[in-house]
């Protein structure tokens, strides 16, 4: 009930849903938000007695000052990008899969099994393919579990995927301390390094995972925009009832999409574990939170695969650049987390204005409205 209608109280402003903003407007809005965040972060930096302009300069230059820094930037961005692409279809379906981290890990675990325990005779290429398939299956299964329980019993997927992340993480610890422990490590609990035939190939001095990432971005764009599956995802995301009315098998769509989501994350895990960033071995730090950061990335990118590339790169730059700033200014690398937090908070806040607008009322209209129409029509 609108209180204004009773004639006792009329708010000076109210919030209404706005008609779609154009892409350009959204871009400008987000630009403002990031600018505000950068200024806010700058004030924090200035409080530490550091010139914020030169700090930000160091962050940006630090990412590109040499071929080596660009390489390490790519190494940070690629797993984040793949994990982000992975959660997009699930989120479009409004299936809150925050289990990207666990699916990424399980992909890495399954791939590691192939790398460590398949017969030595398998040559490099088939072995890599087997590892990729294992990664896809591992991640896919880990995503199918919450999807199954969601479809069958309505189990809350946010909470279940969250729990599965940690179960996956400690599966690595279990394997590391027990069955997969490297006897050659001299009592130190670790999993053996992969044999060289299970190492990821490189192109231009970087792991070829970047090619896979590019292909995945293209695939996901087409899949969501141009295929029947993509259309079904959009309909289920919009309204489950509409989808049922239209004769879609909603559960099948959910299971299929979640498998895809987990499979891509799992493939990301396989690429990470066989790449040089992890020195070709499985450890508990394999995912290092990319599955969580991915959720923030895709949300800021409005669930668009192309925009995700840009956002993931920016987040990666912040990470990498702050690492450089750490050594230059003696600041803790945690400054990256704080800045990330501030930027994400402001952009999240700014998103409000893409969906809603505030309508102010003049004093005049409040007076006339309350005087003229007690019990009037609700707006």
């Amino acid at each position, binding site marked *: 009930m609108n209180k204004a209608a009773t004639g006792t109280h009329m708010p000076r402003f109210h*919030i209404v849903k706005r008609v779609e903003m154009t892409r350009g407007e959204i871009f400008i809005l987000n630009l403002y938000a990031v600018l505000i965040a950068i200024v806010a972060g700058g004030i924090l930096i200035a409080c530490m007695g550091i010139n914020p302009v030169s700090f930000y300069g160091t962050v940006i230059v630090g990412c590109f000052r040499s071929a080596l820094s660009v390489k390490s930037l790519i190494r940070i961005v690629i797993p984040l990008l793949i994990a982000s692409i992975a959660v997009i279809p699930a989120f479009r379906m409004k299936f809150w899969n925050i289990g990207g981290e666990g699916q990424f890990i399980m992909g890495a675990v399954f791939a590691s099994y192939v790398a460590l325990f398949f017969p030595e005779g398998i040559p490099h290429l088939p072995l890599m393919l087997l590892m990729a398939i294992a990664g896809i299956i591992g991640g896919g299964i880990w995503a199918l579990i919450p999807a199954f329980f969601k479809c069958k019993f309505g189990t809350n997927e946010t909470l279940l995927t969250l729990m599965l992340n940690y179960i996956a993480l400690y599966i690595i*610890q279990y394997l590391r301390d027990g069955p997969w422990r490297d006897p050659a490590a001299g009592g130190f609990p670790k999993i053996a390094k992969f044999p060289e035939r299970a190492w990821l190939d490189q192109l231009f001095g970087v792991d070829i995972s970047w090619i896979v990432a590019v292909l995945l971005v293209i695939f996901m764009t087409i899949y969501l925009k141009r295929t029947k599956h993509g259309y079904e995802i959009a309909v289920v995301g919009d309204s489950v009832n509409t989808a049922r009315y239209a004769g879609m098998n909603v559960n099948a769509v959910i299971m299929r999409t979640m498998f895809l989501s987990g499979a891509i994350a799992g493939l990301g895990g396989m690429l990470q574990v066989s790449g040089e960033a992890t020195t070709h071995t499985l450890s508990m730090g394999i995912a290092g939170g990319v599955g969580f950061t991915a959720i923030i990335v895709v949300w800021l990118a409005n669930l668009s695969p192309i925009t995700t590339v840009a956002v993931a790169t920016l987040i990666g730059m912040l990470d990498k650049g702050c690492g450089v700033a750490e050594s230059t200014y003696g600041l*803790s690398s*945690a400054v990256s*987390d704080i800045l990330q937090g501030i930027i994400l*908070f402001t952009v999240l806040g700014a998103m409000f204005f893409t969906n809603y607008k505030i309508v102010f009322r003049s004093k005049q209209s409040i007076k006339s409205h309350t005087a003229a129409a007690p019990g009037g029509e609700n707006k």
Partner: protein
Amino acid sequence: MNTIVNFLFAAIKAGTPLLFGTTGEIITEKAGNLNLGVEGLMYMGAFVGFLVGFYTESLLLSLLAAFGAGVLGSLIYAFLTVTLKANQNVTGLTLTIFGTGFANFFGEMLIAATKGGAPKLSAKFSAKLAEIQIPLLSDIPYLGRALFSHNILVYLAIIIAILSWAYIKFTRAGLYLRATGENPAAADASGLNVTLIKYVNILLGGGICGIGGAYISLLNGNGVWNNGCVNGQGWIAVALVIFASWSPAKAILGSLVFGAFTIFQVRAGDFAAEFPALSFLSSIPNAIYVMLPFLVTAVVLIITSITRKREGAQPASCGVNYYREER
């Protein structure tokens, strides 16, 4: 017998920060907001509580400061999700990143500013957190040691949990809180101020999480500040909310169970030595004990959804923002 008593004693201590975090998160979720920033809130409370305790040597001020830090952190969350209707999961995760960075960043500065690089609480301050023998009760054989000779924060956690339980279950404000979390549109229609109710409870919950963080920094590191001290306990607290089926009273027992899982990691050997029948306990790998809180929670989550009990389920509107003009 002593093994069991010591075990129970240690499990209660290990469960206490979880109990704070869980109680805070239950109040938050009852308002219809899933705050995945508990870890971050606990970090903020841990650092601010430690800092104030370090400089003022006052336990009360330290706890108030930790509470305040939790309130401020959750104010960011409440403003974004309630007023600006930002996605709850994303905002909560961001809060975790921010809070973790906040504590480790300023923690690093505190370490750099302290001679010897190990900021330690004064003996005078730590004495206030010494174990208290409750008169008479602590003389009960066995039980007295296990239950009634803890530091003051353990009792504070239990008192807060009981008060929160009573608040949610028996008071009018608690009824409004539940109504808001279950069906904000109906609550709004019946004249409740949904925004205000959400704000008050999210901030209250955040503050309690902050105290949980302070427990960790003040007690678990022998009075020395450690970066990364919360170390995932905020996430275990989120799991415990489910395990306790959104009841602070059950959370008391739940925190004991989860605390026990933690203690088994170090004490399983003692058990096996004392009771040969339990020797299998020490052959269970550590990883399983660390995993158990999450595994058990996942199973509980699935079982409650299979039985479809309305009671003990997540508040219906949890995770979905309320916008009055939406239908």
